[in-house]
């Protein structure tokens, strides 16, 4: 726990921008906002694409399973690296078995079940917390040159 705290402490947040996402129409403007920040910190095109695709997956999950929520967009830095941190928070039903939800192909929505495991592969840091009946919080970080 101490080590985790220390790790978090070394990541500095430079800019916080919360954005509510309640409807399907909010997805494209949200993606554009993420892109603006990614361009601002000079993230390469491939990493940008990975980040926005990951963000798109998570925001869809939030809408589809969590009934919408809020995303916090942050520019963070750690030493020489700068990156984007996105926190997706909903007050939906939560996920009973997180390790199952993280498996390729697991879906309760008759979908491909790629969103969560795929997102994890696309970003540098991935953290998910969920409590049944309370909601779900997913945090990802993509470093500009990571």
């Amino acid at each position, binding site marked *: 726990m101490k080590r985790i705290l220390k790790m978090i402490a070394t990541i500095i947040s430079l800019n916080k921008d919360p954005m509510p996402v309640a409807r*399907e*129409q909010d*997805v*494209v403007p949200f*993606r554009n906002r993420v892109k603006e920040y990614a361009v601002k910190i000079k993230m390469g*095109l*491939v990493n*940008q*694409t*990975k980040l*926005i*695709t990951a963000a*798109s*997956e998570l925001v*869809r999950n939030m809408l589809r399973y969590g009934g919408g929520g809020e995303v916090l967009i942050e520019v963070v830095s750690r030493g020489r690296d700068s990156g984007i941190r996105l926190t997706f928070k909903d007050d939906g039903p939560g996920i009973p078995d997180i390790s199952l939800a993280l498996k*390729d192909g697991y879906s309760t929505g008759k*979908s*491909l079940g*790629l*969103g969560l*495991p*795929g*997102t994890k*592969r*696309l970003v540098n840091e991935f953290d998910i917390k969920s409590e049944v009946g309370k909601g779900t919080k997913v945090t990802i970080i993509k470093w500009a040159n990571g």
Partner: protein
Amino acid sequence: MDRIPILRMGPFLLVTIQVDLYDRLALDLEADLVKMVSKTGAQGILIDISAVSIVDSFMGRIIGNIGVMAKLLDAETVVVGMQPAVAITLVELGLPLKGVFTALNVERGMDLLKSKIQLFEQDETDPENDSDDHITE
């Protein structure tokens, strides 16, 4: 409401996706294309995604669905012009994009569709060719 235009070019249908799709728009496209294939008897669908910068699992599934549905109606689907960053991302995401062919650009996609149809016609008209195929398989 917005709709993505579907162009008819001989036996093929051509769709150029110019904007990042809202889900509704993508679902409409799927429905429109399938209806159009059935109505026109088109033998191929060409989807140009060279202007698309993000393909997530939702978009990927729609494209895959179009391919499978078209196939049920006897038409082949070719996706053309995928950007390198999108291809790299899809592979990492793990999206297989099954049921569709791919080509570098519209022109190559056209050629590919034509060759698919030719092969198909040959198979039908040339029983010898047909049996040859079976032997080599």
